[in-house]
């Protein structure tokens, strides 16, 4: 936070200090601009002199193929967005349930607690791709439910995998809230449930917002793996184009779209955590 400029009479010593800081500030900006140019120049030069660069450029960064494949890949992205939204809702619910079970102390819940522990341990160990195969090909293989759309199977797989991660982040957040806050809440008469809802969860969420957002962005990206089940999502659409044209630019198109999709959330996350920091802590110099 910047100090407000007030018109105080300042001593020559302070004037000199302020002038020095200003000079230093200008110098830092100049240095960072210069170093950026040097690095960009070095990369450009390396690529320029690389013997295969024209071929690579044509294969990955062709404007022609970019424009041609863009609408098709964008179409596929819509499937990713839908799967992402449903997975997000599913993960929020299932992940919170797992976390609450994990931190519960009630003896009745012991079997559930053991199951939740086993679930989070196993799920975090299995590669996402394997989960997709098991759910995507295993469940329909049972022949119990008839034909299940691939989108739904993909959503289930992503939800199953990410709930395990989210549950552990949430659990860490809940346990990180100081026990004194719980004592304080109980001592003014809040019930155990009210304490969790009104004090523990809001405080925990503030602490783990960056970690949650990080998992969310990773999830956005992993949703692209549903292409392995045969769904025509952005990655699959790109793959089809690549197979037709022998040009890899459609993959770059898909990547650009995925990046664009994550940027708003990255900005939102930075803004939110900065806001909390500002509100709840008085800043210092370091």
């Amino acid at each position, binding site marked *: 936070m910047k100090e407000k400029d007030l018109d105080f009479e300042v001593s020559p010593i302070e004037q000199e200090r302020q002038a020095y800081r200003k000079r230093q500030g200008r110098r830092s900006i100049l240095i960072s601009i210069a170093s950026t140019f040097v690095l960009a120049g070095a990369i450009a030069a390396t690529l320029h002199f690389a013997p295969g660069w024209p071929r690579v450029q044509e294969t990955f960064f062709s404007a022609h193929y970019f424009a041609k494949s863009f609408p098709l890949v964008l179409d596929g992205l819509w499937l990713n967005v839908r799967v992402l939204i449903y997975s997000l809702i599913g993960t929020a619910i299932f992940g919170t349930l797992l976390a609450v079970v994990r931190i519960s102390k009630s003896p009745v819940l012991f079997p559930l607690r053991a199951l939740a522990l086993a679930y989070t341990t196993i799920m975090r160990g299995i590669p996402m791709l394997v989960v997709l195969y098991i759910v995507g090909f295993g469940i329909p293989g049972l022949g119990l439910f008839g034909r299940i759309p691939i989108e739904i199977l993909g959503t289930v797989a992503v939800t199953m995998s990410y709930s395990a991660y989210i549950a552990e982040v949430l659990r860490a957040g809940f346990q990180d809230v100081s026990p004194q806050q719980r004592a304080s809440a109980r001592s003014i008469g*809040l019930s155990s449930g009210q304490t969790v809802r009104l004090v523990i969860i809001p405080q925990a969420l503030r602490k783990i917002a960056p970690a949650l957002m990080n998992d969310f962005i990773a999830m956005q990206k992993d949703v692209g793996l549903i292409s392995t089940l045969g769904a025509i999502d952005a990655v699959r659409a790109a793959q089809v184009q690549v197979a037709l044209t022998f040009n890899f630019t459609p993959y770059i198109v898909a990547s650009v779209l995925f990046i664009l999709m994550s940027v708003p959330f990255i900005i939102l996350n930075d803004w939110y955590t900065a806001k909390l920091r500002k*509100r709840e802590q008085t800043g210092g110099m370091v």
Partner: protein
Amino acid sequence: MEQVVLKIDNVVKRFGENTVLDHVSFDVHKHETVAILGASGSGKSTLMKCVNLLEQVSDGQIWLSGTDITDPRIDSDEIRARIGIVFQHFNLFSHMSVLNNVTLAARKVFKWDRDRAEARAMELLKRIGMDQKAKEYPDRLSGGQQQRVAIVRALMMDPELLLLDEITSALDPLLVGEVLEMVEEIKSQGATILMATHEMHFAHGAADRVVLLRNGKIAEIGTPEEVMDNSTDPETQAFFRILKE
């Protein structure tokens, strides 16, 4: 004699092998201020926690206005809501404004509507000159201000008993005064207070009776003059001499 608000009857508290409270008994009467004194580890804080049901007693009983609050069949949330407690480390909810901290119990436990709770809270905050800070978050306040807000939070529902657990121990000496002044005022308005404290001058001035704990047992009980000035017990004399120096 006024009615007994709090009756501590042969309370024992053990943590494993360690006996922290060893058959402690005393009463707190209405409008009375009782100070619990004793060295660190003598059991003061544990006793406060037992009274507020944050810890279970290992034996004995505690009565609040005739209700046995150590009976596992009672509704402990309801009992806690009847007792106000202020902690050493303030323990304000860091994600809520001062006003929401103070009104939380009224709104969520006693189901007051927001206007009524806020009106009452603002009146109390105004009395301690903190009404301007109602919208601030606790981390923006000084320790003394936070502790005064915590006291207001405890007083919000007119508790039958106010517990003050070393409320000045985490404050720097300059801020202790403003908090103790506030306690004096609450006392003069007729509150019933049980406090654990290291502030000997304050205990001497404000308490009607003091209880001196030593190794979990009551070593002495009586008026501040009897216990702090005129005790014939050499250990008690030594304890207060060290503190006065």
